[in-house]
């Protein structure tokens, strides 16, 4: 198993380098002049700004040297300065990270719990009504544009029915809890403020469900397929021959095996969640990296766009790595080799 993990770890830096290189290439080919991607078109006439950018990013040097400077800057956390907020992009992203993280974790929980349940139900009631319903529900989730479902569901549940709160992490007049983790749910609990906790959870429900709906699809599809595969195996028959009840067979035996390949899908679905966050944070006025990315895109804030891309790619790589390592631990056939 360790050999497997080490192999994966070794591949990481190369992929990271690849991500960064692509970002570098993109900045260089932005409308022909890399300077534009650093200071924006409007500042091109300002000689002081231009000179400062040239120095910081080594734009008067050869391409390979610029590449090295670029990587060097990244390693020190210098992602460039946002054209819009005038702050370092790195600083901006750090500020916005917890909000998105809280949303993505919540969405992952919702998506996987419901997704796994749907998958088990679909496999158990194969080809019957429950199976068709589960698959249809999941399919809708992957076909519907997340920014639209967010809108519609907000309209229905907040504006029309009034059972869920509106956009934002908290009600407009509520103060955020003291910042420890940046997760309003955890921070309010730690501060002992239960009403803020309840409020932050309530505000999480709709965005988490909307985002989670997208991944429910791929997770339930995988769980269903794995379950059907597993339920055909002899050890399921042997478990029944032991006198195991149907629930026990489904969970202890079937699901335990079916979840192993599902783990990979869970990691992969993280990409969907990032996508979803980018597209839906704006709708829910969620102050995370997603809405930051959208603002950056709308304003052609190139440093911010590149920064977000690098961070997004890195995050995705990391989750895949973690998933692969977890997979190695969970499957005893790999663990003891």
């Amino acid at each position: 198993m360790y050999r497997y993990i080490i192999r994966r770890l070794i591949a990481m830096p190369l992929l990271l380098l690849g991500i960064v290189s692509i970002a570098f290439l993109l900045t260089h080919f932005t409308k022909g002049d890399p300077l534009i991607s650093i200071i924006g078109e409007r500042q091109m006439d300002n000689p002081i700004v231009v000179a400062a950018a040239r120095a910081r990013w080594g734009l008067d040097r050869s391409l390979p040297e610029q590449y090295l400077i670029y990587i060097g800057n990244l390693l020190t956390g210098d992602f460039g300065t946002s054209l819009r907020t005038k702050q370092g992009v790195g600083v901006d992203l750090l500020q916005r990270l917890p909000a998105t993280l809280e949303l993505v974790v919540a969405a992952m929980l919702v998506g996987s719990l419901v997704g796994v349940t749907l998958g088990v139900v679909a496999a158990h009631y194969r080809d019957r009504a429950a199976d068709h319903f589960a698959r249809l529900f999941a399919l809708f989730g992957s076909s519907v544009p997340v920014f639209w479902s967010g809108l519609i569901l907000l309209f229905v549940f907040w504006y029309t029915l009034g059972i869920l709160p509106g956009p934002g992490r908290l009600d407009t007049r509520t103060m955020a809890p003291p910042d420890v983790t940046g997760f309003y749910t955890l921070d309010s609990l730690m501060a002992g403020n239960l009403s803020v906790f309840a409020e932050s959870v309530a505000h999480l429900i709709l965005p988490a469900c909307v985002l989670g709906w997208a991944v429910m699809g791929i997770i339930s599809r995988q769980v269903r397929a794995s379950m059907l595969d597993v339920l055909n195996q002899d050890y399921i028959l042997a478990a029944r021959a032991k006198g195991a009840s149907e629930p026990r067979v489904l969970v202890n035996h079937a699901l335990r095996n079916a979840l192993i390949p599902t783990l990979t899908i869970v990691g992969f679905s993280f990409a969907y969640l990032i996508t979803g966050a980018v597209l839906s944070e704006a709708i829910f006025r969620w102050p995370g990296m997603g809405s930051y990315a959208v603002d950056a895109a709308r304003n052609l804030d190139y440093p911010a766009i590149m920064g977000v891309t690098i961070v997004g790619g890195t995050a995705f790589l990391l989750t895949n790595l973690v998933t692969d390592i977890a997979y190695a631990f969970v499957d005893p056939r790999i663990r003891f080799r």
Partner: protein
Amino acid sequence: MQSPDAPLLEIRGLEVTFAAARGRLEAIRGVDLEARSGETLGLVGESGCGKSVTMLAVMGLLPPSVQIRGSIRFRGMELAGRPQKELAKLRGASIGMIFQDPMTALNPVLTIGAQIAEAIRIHDATVSARVAAGRAVDMLKLVTIPYPERRALQYPHELSGGMRQRAMIAMAMANEPELLIADEPTTALDVTVQAQIIELLRRLQATHRMGLVLISHDLGIVAGSADRVAIMYAGRIVERGAVEDIFDRPRHPYTRGLLASLPKIDGQATRLTAIEGSPPSLTARPSGCAFHPRCRHAVELCAAQEPALRDIAGIDVACHRAELVADSVAAPSATAELPSRPNATA
């Protein structure tokens, strides 16, 4: 050794029909069988003849879409038509079953010990995890696995084929069942290991006074360990009786064919005589006797009417021409080459 008067397992008129896209498939068409405590019943036939399906029907492990008719009595209690909940109480406790391929029949992500302990705790919820784990180790000792404490913590893929099969036997024996069904227990194993497993099963049967149903397509295995044997063909029993009688003087052409096709180690090297043709598929059964297209002795009656089992000198045979077959030259080498049966234990 005396068998008690009433058989442990009594199957009467069992019919099993599968509903498939192509139509209804009659897998089992009228099977009568008996298994007794302390006795081994061998169930022999080629793949697809229905021997596994018969035992799965006994255990109630066939899918719900399958139609079962007939009577299956265990200890006098009718099993056919019972709700799954009640059958589950018997499975793994009073009736145990082991399967052909221990690699696929053991859950790959649970330790051996955990799987055996589960068998115990399913049927007795009062047993604590630690006690169950201890009993699991005891079971591994019973099936003579060396270093049982260590093995109990290992996963199936870490054991050899023979050990896996022993572990599966341990799992099936965990609650000391009265009846053990062994579905091709040696087929997936090396020849040397096969003998060990059969020996283990016989020892367990003796010490626990179990009824044992041994399903196999390997006549050699059955000859060496069964007391009674039933030969199945195309979903029906075609010959049934004490093992010595049948192997000495087989009366059904199919049985004779099976015995003749056994390779003989001593004696002259002759061509293997195969039975011509192949077993019929479920959807295209011949009329009358299912074996008649492949039978040397077949006449018009055989194609017209399916023969019922009738008693001929102590053996039940389903053949219109049984007397003729019996009187034709018996294959003398068939008996000479059988592995000698050790005395039945008291």
